[in-house]
């Protein structure tokens, strides 16, 4: 075999630029670029950075593929944002796969042990109707976020919203499949959750809030409404404040485990959201206006979400679960909500009380 006269390997020759082995067109947030930054930053170009010719396609009204017109929020440099969860596709698949495999293991083991058969009858009804209704709320949030991931002004913003959508859509399917699986062991009407979602008075205010989010067209408004308002005051209250706390008192260790991943999803998505919102609210030129806009969004979504939680209150009461008290769950949520607003320096609308 003839030996080649050259090598294509790093270091085999030294010449101008032969040691330039880092992406050098962006400023890392830290001392060195992370892998997340390397595979994410600037993939969606921007005329304010490297896009020499600007966007070369437009809509019929002349607006380009991307532009500041996409959100009412203004920021001097959207590219500063980095998601705290540093998620890119590989870590996303690893985490989602880990969750799916864990849920499968928990549910398979519970079913083989006959656990669903030991769930108290009133609790089975709760799972069938109310946990079944929740899957539609989660789906709605996923759909809204999936739509929103088109419009962010940087790759970092859009990918963060994308993974949030993925988490929500996964959760809605997890609940669907879980109820289907245990429905092979105990009697669960697979249509009851949808019926409750569409007709049950407990859920109509929640559906109204979700539909308001779905009707929004500003991606920043959607992201804000989902993670700052709905999840804090409705989603987490029902998942953590009811399902996870009440389940054990009805011999159910399975459902809390299935839904527990959602709390961790939210923790991560909230951190991403607050980092983004704090960035735009700290913007020297537009921060004050941005905060005012967000207060306006609160005026829109806060009453809807507080009403949603209030209408769900009887679900706690009729169940009579030990360890799950609506009042304390809501109080915890309101405390957390206030902390969230403090984090992004947004005030409640005038005259509004939690």
């Amino acid at each position: 075999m003839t030996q080649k006269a050259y090598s294509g390997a790093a270091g085999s020759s030294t010449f101008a630029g032969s040691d330039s082995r880092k992406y050098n067109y962006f400023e890392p947030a830290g001392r060195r670029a992370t892998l997340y930054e390397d595979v994410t930053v600037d993939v969606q170009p921007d005329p304010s950075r490297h896009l020499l010719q600007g966007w070369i396609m437009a809509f019929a009204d002349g607006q380009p593929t991307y532009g500041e017109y996409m959100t009412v929020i203004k920021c001097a440099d959207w590219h500063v944002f980095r998601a705290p969860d540093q998620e890119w596709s590989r870590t996303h698949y690893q985490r989602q796969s880990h969750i799916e495999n864990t849920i499968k293991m928990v549910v398979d083991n519970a079913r083989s042990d006959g656990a669903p058969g030991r769930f108290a009858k009133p609790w089975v009804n709760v799972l069938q109707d109310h946990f079944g209704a929740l899957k539609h709320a989660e789906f709605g949030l996923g759909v809204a976020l999936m739509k929103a991931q088109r419009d962010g002004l940087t790759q970092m913003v859009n990918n963060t919203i994308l993974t949030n959508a993925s988490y929500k859509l996964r959760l809605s399917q997890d609940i669907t499949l879980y109820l289907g699986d245990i429905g092979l062991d105990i009697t669960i009407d697979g249509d009851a959750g949808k019926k409750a979602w569409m007709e049950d008075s407990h859920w109509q205010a929640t559906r109204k809030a979700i539909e308001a989010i779905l009707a929004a067209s500003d991606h920043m408004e959607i992201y804000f409404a989902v993670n700052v308002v709905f999840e804090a005051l409705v989603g987490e209250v029902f998942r953590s404040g009811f399902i996870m706390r009440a389940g054990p008192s009805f011999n159910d260790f399975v459902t809390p485990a299935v839904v527990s991943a959602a709390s961790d999803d939210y923790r991560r998505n909230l951190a991403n959201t607050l980092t983004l919102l704090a960035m735009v609210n700290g913007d020297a030129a537009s921060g004050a206006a941005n905060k005012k806009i967000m207060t306006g969004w609160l005026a829109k979504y806060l009453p809807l979400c507080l009403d949603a939680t209030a209408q769900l209150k009887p679900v706690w009461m009729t169940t009579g679960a030990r360890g799950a008290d609506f009042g304390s769950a809501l109080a915890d949520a309101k405390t957390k909500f206030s902390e969230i607003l403090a984090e992004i320096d947004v005030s409640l609308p005038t005259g509004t009380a939690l």
Partner: protein
Amino acid sequence: MAGDLSLTKIVNQKGISVTEATKRIADLGWAPSYFEEILKYPTDYKVEKAPKDPMKQVLRSYFPMQEEKDNRVYGALDAALRGDMFRNVEPRWIEWQKLFLAIIPFPEISAARSMAIQAQIAPGEDLRTGFTMQMIDEFRHSTIQMNLKKWYMENYVDPAGFDITEAAFGKCYATTIGRQFGEGFITGDAVTSTNIYLQVVAETAFTNTLFVAMPSEAARNGDYALPTIFLSVQSDESRHIGNGHSFLMSIVKEPENLDLLERDLRYAFWQNHAIVDAAIGTIIEYGTKDRDKNKESYAELWHRWVFDDYYRTYLLPLEKYGVKVHHEDVEAAWDRIVKSNYVHKVAQFFSFGWPVAFWRIDGMVDEDFEWFESKYPGWYNEFGTYWENYGKASLPNQPPLMYLDSGYVYPHRCWSCNVPALIREEFCVDEVDGELYTYCSELCRWTHKVAFAPEYNGRPTPAMGRFSGRRQWEECYHGWDLADVVKDLGFVRSDGHTVIQQPHLHMDSSKMWTLDHFKGLEVRSPLLDLRAMSQADREKHIAQYQAGFTCKPL
């Protein structure tokens, strides 16, 4: 149930069936009654029938499957390093990856954004999981490709060009075509962009040349990483093709959609041909050192993947639904490849423009000439002198070939596909909204003037997009000094003096071009010059351009 323990039950505990699971998941959506959702990205198509899910896969199985695919990919990268891949890789090949991998992540992520649009216009939720998986797949593709590029940068002998990759993508004379591709997936009519341009044509017709044919060539050049990644990417494409076909079937039976389908299939097929064949054809044919005459040429690959697989088995059957398929467009694309030497002319243009590239373009030598002549008889007569000139002018002993009297005429750029008008006899011009534009072909002229217009066949098309912005790269630097252009582009190595792009593979600073070699050379925009001409001069210029040129030996 507890108490019924048996070995069979332990190992065969059944879950909900896939059919039942997908049925219930499709029922997660509902018709809102409290607030009405506004369609943010409208379409002129009638979209009323819900597309069906052909794959019936749920996220519970999707995520572990993708994780496993990733594990194989990243394991293979580690193995390639342990096997000392870069010692034997062909630099000619890796250099072209600086261009390709700069381009491709943006169209990929645009395809993810495209799913936001398509999922909103699709009635029902049957295909929601399909759209969701495609969204996440495309997120995977863009990041996995960015990671591959980083890996090349860290391990290949000359990292310059990889190190500026996304900045270069936004600035280079050759990457505009990739931006046209990516923006086309997310801008304008929602059906045109997401379904026809992306799924029905780009993914169904052309990803095989992108993600199957190109990996084969990579392996022949000692690059085992790219095939691993791109075949993994292609394994996702079958889902996307399924999404596209399902959506297409949901709109094809509406009679009022037929003329729009005819328009969009023409536009999308022609533009995909112009863009993908330009880039991938060049990389496969001119980025390789493997000259095995038994392997297929790009033309042969195109015939297999595009003509046989796509045109005959996918496009033609649409006629039974009343869709007018323009057979002559497919024939014309084929003729451009085999009779008009489209790919070779693109390679010629890329190499001629090397001073504003950000990768090295290796010249062709005798072994290449022999292979091209055997695969494309007559090649040497048309291109031999050019490549001999290219070789003679590869070291910085004279100005770059672009500024020598070699007979080659820097081409006009097509306003529609953004590839230059390289088949000179097909060059044409037209006025749109009172402004003069240049095109590579009659179909690209039609695309700009007729397809991307406020009405089509007498019907209003308010959702259709527009071509906009500074589409012609040369306009940005009209009248500039070449050294200033390259500095402005940022295509300069870390010493601040030597340029990244080189018309050779010498890894030796003494043979490399610097900014000094570019000083005093002017860049001009053929379009601006054409617009500045009198009518008579313009007509004369066009006739001369269409007559072509002859390269003369240096």
